[in-house]
């Protein structure tokens, strides 16, 4: 009897162990076509920005899938996949290969070289003294021979291995520059980061609570299936220094994502002007990650950001109040037209 029981037990266990395919379905094929299919389908059902992209996603799939077969090399497969993603032209859509040796950003602006800004030029030509705080992400000083302060914020992201506390250091700069007649806040080449840190920083510059954007999260696979608006609010924080005199916010085409949230808040301030170039135009948010059979990862936004009135700047960017575009030649010649415009605005009575 015991032998019968043991044999039955072994039989049951072996049967159950051997039926993964029946219980979970087949393992996804590790082929170039299936790799592309999974990426395409996940984006089709979850990517939040289709309503503001003029792209026929089904046709895109057909076109690029036809370029792949089982013998396509991984390099060619990578190129085809990147080309497919380029149709989204979205700064938040990134593809990274398995060993992190290749990375692709689907935005056309990301392909450009950020050569219209030099912090070294600002430091050497315009500033009399410079201090660096906020884990190296905030630089500030006074503009030579003026009573104008300058703050440069290189990123709203957290430096590797540290939390968001660095952003509180903005209080030190604001406190020290509080006697200035005006401030230049420079976020050129600031590619974004976290909304929490930009809110911490911007709290020192606003005089009222602002509903600067609304966001809608995807709630289903349809391209237009969204939940109710989530209001993004920026508020003042009590007990912290504040600067609500004249402000000039410097932006360029590489001020992206969280920097554009920052910019939009400034657009709501009567005493601030955006000067420089139009921002990047990356308005997706809450980034999801897809894991692909090739070991690649693709990140994409699953929330659509608009103004409270419903206007979306995705792929467009926020247009400055005073357009002052630098060229590579300006920088080489030691000129920063945007800085000059900001100084002119702040010193104009």
């Amino acid at each position, binding site marked *: 009897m015991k032998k019968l029981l043991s044999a039955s037990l072994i039989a049951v266990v072996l049967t159950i162990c051997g039926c993964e395919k029946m219980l*979970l379905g087949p393992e996804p094929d590790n082929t170039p076509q299936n790799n592309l299919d999974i990426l395409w389908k996940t984006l089709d059902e979850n990517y939040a920005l289709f309503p503001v992209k003029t792209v026929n996603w089904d046709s895109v799939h057909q076109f690029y899938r036809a370029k792949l077969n089982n013998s396509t090399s991984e390099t060619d497969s990578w190129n085809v996949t990147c080309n497919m993603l380029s149709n989204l032209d979205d700064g938040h859509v990134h593809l990274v290969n398995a060993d992190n040796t290749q990375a692709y950003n689907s935005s056309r602006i990301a392909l450009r070289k950020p050569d219209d800004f030099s912090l070294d030029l600002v430091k050497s030509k315009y500033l009399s003294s410079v201090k660096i705080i906020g884990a190296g992400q905030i630089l500030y000083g006074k503009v030579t021979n003026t009573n104008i302060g300058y703050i440069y914020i290189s990123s709203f992201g957290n430096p590797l291995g540290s939390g968001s506390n660095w952003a509180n250091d903005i209080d030190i700069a604001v406190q020290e520059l509080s006697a200035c007649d005006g401030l230049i806040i420079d976020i050129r080449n600031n590619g974004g980061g976290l909304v929490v840190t930009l809110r911490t920083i911007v709290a020192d510059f606003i005089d009222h609570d602002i509903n600067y954007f609304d966001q809608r999260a995807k709630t289903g696979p349809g391209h237009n299936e969204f939940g109710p608006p989530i209001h993004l609010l920026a508020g003042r924080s009590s007990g912290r220094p504040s600067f609500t005199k004249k402000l000039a916010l410097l932006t360029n085409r590489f001020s992206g994502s969280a920097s554009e949230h920052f910019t939009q808040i400034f657009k709501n301030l009567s005493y601030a002007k955006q000067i420089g170039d139009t921002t990047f135009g990356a308005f997706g948010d809450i980034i999801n*990650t897809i894991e692909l059979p090739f070991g690649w990862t693709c990140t994409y936004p699953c929330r659509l950001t608009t103004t409270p009135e419903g206007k979306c700047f995705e792929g467009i960017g926020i247009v400055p109040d005073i357009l002052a575009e630098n060229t590579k030649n300006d920088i080489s010649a030691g000129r920063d037209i945007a800085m000059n415009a900001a100084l002119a605005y702040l010193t104009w009575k």
Partner: protein
Amino acid sequence: MNPKQVLSKLSLLFFIPLFYMNAQNYVGGGFGGSDFHILDEHASQLIFGSIGIASGIQFIHKGEMGLHNVEISYYNNYLSSPSSNFNTESWRAGIRYTYMLLAANPELFGKTCGVYFGGSVGTFFSRQDYYYYYKPAEANAVADVSWIWSHSVDISAEFDYNIAEREYVSGQIDMPLLSNISRPEYSSSGDYNYSENTWKIKMFGTTELFPNNFSLDFHLNYQRPLYWNFNIQFSYEFYYSFYNKPSDIRMYANNFCGGLFYCF
């Protein structure tokens, strides 16, 4: 009668049968291995699986009329996928109380058997943290977090084969009839610092009736005396679960445990 008196009478009704003359009680725990596999399309289209640990503690009361069984279990697995840069940390914990009535006790090969039918109430929480290797930080980064939290009223059945005193083989099966399932939202809901992003876990979610939230939990136990009042137990559990919100999640586990039980 005030509520306190009602409660004390109810508790007497529950506990007195546990100490009947011919009743047998078993309390103990076990530890072993868990072979766990999951496909959670909410988080990833890839199948993850591996061997991990399984553990549990259990109280069983077998009376003349029926049996009570309380079981707390915990499983932990570090799951891998065919792509070496993706892995997932998974854990599952649950508690279940089962009450079954003896429906028949036929003889088989000269030994007595027990056939029980009844129900159980249980809850389990299963969470998976999906990681990918992020070279700039030389560490794993979170790709997604997914979970399923199920509270259910189940139908249960058990078959015992009593080989000798305190030595038996039993097989128990549980399937949910009515359940309440908490799963993540369709898309991430961030708090913008990405530390709690997506993963504000709600205890209650959608109420489902069989066969939605289909799951099957099968236990096969063998106990025999070891020394004095202690029994040794070898157990095998097969667990399968399927649910389809917000996307399909399928998982199964083969758990093997060895344990020690005190009998009284």
